[in-house]
């Protein structure tokens, strides 16, 4: 297994979608998927998933999913580093399932444990009237594809409203990255000494 000349490096993401903080909403569930570049592939694990519906407890106002993430990627190129896209849905007043937030974050590049709090947002209706009808009919504006939030292109045409936060914890393990010339280790003195090795493009 341990080859001296690896042709790919591996990135293992373990973690949890821990929970969310949506002060106004309850009974939410969350979907996640990864967005990554051409040179990336998922070797094991779920590429996308959906959590259970969670309710707030009387004591705590946070929504807890504790939904595990376990995915391994392989890649040859750090460009297109995986991004975790989460979208939260839940029923509105009339029981229609509407989106409560989209958010994305890059999978941390440094090995180790990380916690990310992702701010969530939803697209805004173009018209006030649409807002009303959308509210009445439970058809709020949604992204054509949740993955849109992981890309920069075309976002300028949208207007969004911020909603809440989703907390995700990651445990990142990488393999062979250093061998291929990418040092993503934490930036402390210990590793700084070993950075000197030549960086091949």
């Amino acid at each position, binding site marked *: 297994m341990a080859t001296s*000349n690896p*042709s*790919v*490096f591996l990135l293992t993401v373990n973690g949890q979608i821990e929970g969310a903080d949506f002060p106004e909403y309850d009974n939410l569930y969350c*979907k996640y*998927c990864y967005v990554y570049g*051409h*040179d990336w*592939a998922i070797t094991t694990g779920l590429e*996308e998933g*959906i959590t259970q519906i969670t309710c707030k407890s009387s004591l705590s106002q946070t929504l807890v999913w504790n939904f595990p993430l376990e995915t391994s990627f392989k*890649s*040859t*190129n750090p*460009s297109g580093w995986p991004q975790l896209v989460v979208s939260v*849905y839940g029923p509105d007043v*009339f029981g*229609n*399932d509407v989106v409560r937030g989209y958010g994305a974050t890059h999978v941390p590049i440094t090995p180790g444990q990380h916690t990310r709090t992702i701010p969530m947002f939803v*697209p805004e*209706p*173009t*018209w006030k*009237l*649409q807002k009303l*009808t*959308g509210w*009445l*009919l*439970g*058809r*709020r*504006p*949604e*992204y*054509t*594809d*949740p993955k*849109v939030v992981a890309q920069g*292109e*075309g*976002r*300028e*045409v*949208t207007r969004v409203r911020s909603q809440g936060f989703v907390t995700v914890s990651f445990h990142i393990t990488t393999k062979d990255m250093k061998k*291929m010339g990418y040092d993503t280790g934490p930036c402390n003195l210990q590793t700084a000494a070993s950075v000197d090795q030549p*960086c*091949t*493009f």
Partner: protein
Amino acid sequence: MKDTEDSEEDSGETLKRTLRAQRQRRRRKLLEQSSVKESQHDDEDEEEVSAVQDQSVKEEPAEKTVALRPPSGSRRGYSLKPLPVSSSQKLDTFVTRHLEEKLRAARFKGESLQQEKEVSADPASRLQSLRGRDRVTRFDRETDSVKAEEDDVSVALSARVKFKEAAKRVNQGLPTANEAYNFFTFNFEPEPAEETEELRRKKRKQKETTEKDRDEDEGEEPEEDDKEDSQDPNENQSEETRLVPTEEDLFIIDQSARDFLEVKKAEYVGVKKRAARDSELLFTPSFRKAPTSVKLPENVKPRFIEDEGLYVGKRPSVSFTNETILENRLLKMEEGLEWFGDDGRILALPDPIKESSTRPPLFSMEGDLNPAIQTVFRKAQKSKYAADPEGDYQLDVEVFGLVFSHHPLFSREHVLASRLCQLYHQYLTRQQNNLTGHLTDKLNGLRNALGNMMKIHREESLTLSLQQRISEYSLEVRDTRQLRDSEQEKDRTLLKNIIKVWKEIKALREFQKFTNTPYKLLLRKENVDPASDQQEYEEEIQAEVMELEAEKEEDYQRSLAEYRKQLEEWKLWRKKQKAKRKKKKKKKKSQKLEDTTEDEDEEQEGSELEGPEDGPPKPQPPERPDFDAIEQQVKEKASKIRRKPGEAVLIPVLSASGNITDSELCPRVEVSRRQEVLRHSLFIKILCNDKKVSKTDSRPLGTDFRVHFGQIFNLRIITCPQSINLQVFEDTGSSSSLLAQVFVPAPEPSVVTGSASLEDFEFSSNQRVMFDHEGVGSDVPLSFEADGSNKVVLLTSGKLTCGVSWGVGDDDVPLAPSASQHPGVKHSGLGHLDAVTSIGASGLYDMKKIGEWAKQSRLDPNDPKNASIMQLLKVASSGEVTAPEYFRLEHLQEEFNFVTDEELDNSRRFRLLRLRNQGVKEFRNYKFIPALENEISDKVFQEYERRLKDGETVDTREHLDSHRALVAKYLQKIQESVMNRLLFAKHRFLLSDLVVEEEIPSIGNKVPVLLKAEKLDSLEHPRQNVRERDRADVNHMLKILGINLFKLTEPKRPLKPQRKERKKVTAQNLSDGDVKLLVNIIRAYDIPVRRPQSDKAGQSSQPAIHGSDWYLNQVQVRPFVEVSFQRTVLQTTTADGPNPSWNEELQLPFSAPNGDYSTSNLQSVKDEVFINIFDEMLHETGVNDKERGPSIHTQVEKHWLGSVRIPFSTIYSQSRIDGTFKVNTPAVLLGYSKERSHGANSGYDLLRSVSEGAFITLFITIEPQLVPGEPVREKFDSQEHERLLQAAEKFERKAAKRYPDRPCITTVIDLNGKTVFITRYIRPLNPPPEFLEAFPNNPQEATTLVARFVSLIPSLPDQVSFSGVCDLWTTCNQFLTLLAGDEEEHAVLLCNYFLSLGKRAWLIIGTAIPEGSTAYVLTHEQSRYLIWNPSSGQFYGQYDTFCPLQAVGCLVDADNVWFNIQEYASPMRMSFDVSKRKLWKPFFSGSFPHPGLSSVQPEELVYSRTDEAAAAELQDRIEKTLKDKIMEWRPRHPTRWNRYCNTTLKQFLPKLEQSRGQDVAEGHRHELQRLLGDYRISGFPLHMSFSEIRPVIEAVYSTGVHNIQGSNVEFALAVYVHPYPNNVLSVWVYLASLVRT
């Protein structure tokens, strides 16, 4: 403070309190006597308490009478407020603290005791031994103990001692084994294991009694004990664990406390006593400052670093008393001296505290605020800290006034007066400067110095240096004299001029008889003493003459010396010459011997020789200077430039005191001038940075042409002004005009309002002004002479007096920008030292100059202000900075290049990444570009490079025709450019691309379907994705809203569900196998039927009379449908009869090329769906197998009957195809006849008879539904008029709104990507002349021929070639050149031909099957409308059921566009009369007439004749290729070609071409039958237009002729290529299979 402390006391404290009460008395005693020396720890504690103690001691007397509180339980502290007993509690706390100290001391003692006990390690013994030991320890301690000095403790210890010791042991920590042993084995005699309360009480009492007994000497021990009880619940517990093993300890204590309550008289300790004791115990640092000597080590003098010039930061401010207290405290400590610095003060770091508070005070928002902290409203003002370079500056511009030196309204007198003024002013200035006097003095001084020097050194010989000096002096004298002379001359002329001008004025005044100006010139005479003056004058002249003489003399001497020198040289030369000559002479002499004439000869020769020898000329002796002349000159000069001796000194005084003649006395012209003057007024606008800032009041122009403003403008600015401009405006009643502009420089920052002086700025204007009155005007020649000569031109000019300075703020700070921001001073570090003034602004960029300057000005290198310049100099001096001679924008770029560009270019990986990023076709979807260079093989690029190379070469093999190859290449290029545009457009998003939103319900139907590209379909909420299609065509918004609201109430799972639209899938998430093509074959009509083998010719026309019998008895045909797509072939079951019904669904997998399911790639899929109808024929061949017996072999043959081809791109863009299509049946089907089915339904029959051929009903779609590519939203540039474009857009939008399913096109995009109005495409164009000639008498034939020609031009859907990006329309000549185009091009060409043929023709924009949105041609002939399909050349009547045109959107002709606003769009149900405005909405109408758009089409088309030979060659090549292919497709069987049949078929084909495949079938069959009687022939001719060979092969393959198996089958193939003009080729392929029967 104490109260709060008390209230916070914990339960332990309360407990203590309960116990305390009863012991108060005892404690007093103790307090008096306690003289415990305590350890250092305790010392500290004591200090803490000291203050408290003080207080409580004072209060002591008052508390004496305080009644003791009965304890009320352990929790009393919680319930009871401490208020009523505050004083006692104070006392309590005090006491408690004190006791705590004691306890600590006692515990210590106990510990030492313990230790000793361990040492002694006595066995368990009784009280006695214990007592004894105790005593020992006491003694021991006295000797051993270091810290504590104890009083004698009496021996009288009861059994409690044991307990105490044990407690101490416990306190100490973990007991040793020995201790434990002791603990458990001790027999505490008086206390049984389970001590009852009584016992306990007894014990306490006992204790007390013992205490009493012990009296005051040993109050300590019991005190300790009590203390222990009260100290802490824990301690209590530890005590009790021993005493009372039961866990009710606290309770017990409570109980016991109550039991012990004892009321006693308050005790009093005297104040003095207490103070004395306190002073022993406590240390109170004094408030007095400790002497410095104490604070320093001995024999050290205080040293003040500050005085030595070292920097000492500011000490934090500490109040004096606090500091002294701290000092005293420190001094008390052993190592306290370390805290003092050299100056004898406490060491302190510089004050870290900011002067101002960083945190603003907080105010509560509600309620009445303290008036002191009430907020005050202040107007918002720009923060000074907000923007650094900008500030709050104030520029004071003072406009004092202006004086005209010339003005158009000047009279002549004014002109002279102003000149006089100027001269006088000049004179005054000169007087002030007094240059003449200064120079005269200097001259005198120099002369004296020279004279002295000469006098002193007269006797002695002059040294060289002295000589030098003297000559220098004399030189100086000469220069000075000359200067003085010129100045004097100037003075003199000025004076003369003044007088002259004054005289002129006087003359003028006299002449004009009035006075305009108040000026008067007085000449003050200052008489001088004529004698002295004369003397001075003479002396002066004398001195000058002397000097001049001396100079002349010197000159003379010098030139004389020169002369002599030259003379010497000349003489020398002469001598040489003579010597030479003498030599010659001697020679001559010896020859001639003539001595007598020697001298003469010599002379002669000399003169002779001199000329040619060119020696130096004989110098002329200098002339002696003429001293008389000098004197004369000097006198002359003096008389010219100086006043004559004795003459009075004239001092001109100009005064403005004269009277101006009143207007009444003046002539009319003058009066009008004066009136004009009065009308004028002036004002000045102030512009700062070219923005008008302010304006002065308008002031009238005075008669003296002086205007006084006297206004000061305070300009509040935030940036240093670049320019300050004062514009002088002249206001002449109605209008004002700009007279001149005065640019005032921005003042130096140091110039502030107080110190600024007014300055004069001259201005002038070259405006030409002329008047008809006395005013002289401006820019007008003016003469003062009577004869008009000596003209002068005067321009309006004047002086503006103003001052600009920086304002001064309230705090005397100049509101000026710092020098660094001052324009002109660029270098920040230099501002204050004013380097600019010393070396000039340009010098700032010269390092050397700066360096020199820095040295000269002795810059302090340590001054932080100079840090930048020192740094600069340091760098400069090291010589590292060499200014490059070029300029670079990104000069740091190179540092970031980690590899060179070449390396980067050579890197295969980088190249791959780059190509992928560019979206190059081959690499667009390249996954996993290897991480390392060496893992990328060159093969990756091979294909790409080959394609690049192929771009240049033309592959004729593939195309068979060079022309077509070129066209193909051209198309490819266009495609590329369009693709690039598409790629660009793809990155522009609309909201709808990103956000799915409930559309505002304007048009009811077509609710956008949510697109979700997830695989989580099942997980999703159904409502989210599936949208009901609102079929109601309701326009009103609110109505729809209502309906939508109504939907809320509808059941979630209705009993009769409505049809729901399928989910559309964006393409990117698909992979191979996900997409399927669904083909529903429903039924077919009019399949050709078999013709009986034995048929005779007569039977061919089978009459309908045979009726149903015949129909029923005969197996006419057994058709089945085979669908082939991407080489996947599926077939239906076999049905019976010519009108079969299959109703079968076939699923064909679809795979996109390169696995790329992106929209653009899918659109460019060129694959076609072939739907072939076959007839299944069973042949039973009996084979007599001798071994097995007779058996019957059934041989299945399939005979191709016809096909329908539907391009995938059509399906993709239409998303579904539903309808009845005409089957392309070959013109001749050997063995089959196109008999009509003669059913009972005669009416249907009748309808059918209109059309010909077979039909098939199909439904094709893609599963899942793919999102078709959107048309490019790019706005193409256009040459059309903007108004037209807007109208077109509006027209289309309106049309789309009302009839969304009717296509409406008004503008199209031409090949250059420009928007063109559609009518420009319509223009009559000549068809090829051959067609017209072919049927000169039959226009109908010509029409069909033309249609056929058009249909023969290969069709290439735009969607394929341009990836559905946009519909490009080519003009007809482009179309004919490209020989490829889609329906629109065909339709346009056909329409144009028809128009040329004199028909009424329109272009129909509509929808048809299977093309979708397309273009047809409509002609109006003989009162009926014909609809032409340009791609097939077919025409249909308006009421033809099988007309593929389904809906008509709009009609286009050369002049107008009509949109169909009829109820129905189907051609059958509508009227084509465009003149009816109710039915057709014209684009150009009365309100917007046709602007006369010229056509984009050429005037006429030029056709080239197609090379027949080339066609023949192509024919051969196709035939050969096809034959090869058929053999290739039959790898297992031999393919025999029936040559005879081949030739026969070949003969048929031209005939077919001629007749366009009609009505020749019978002839064929018969002919073939005759020729090949014993063969069962099945075959057919295929006809197609020619573009490439590939489609031909595909078509042949799809017929499946090659599939006929059998040993005795033979094939026949014939190809005919008929050339039409312009390389349009009609290809016929005749295929037949022959089976020998």
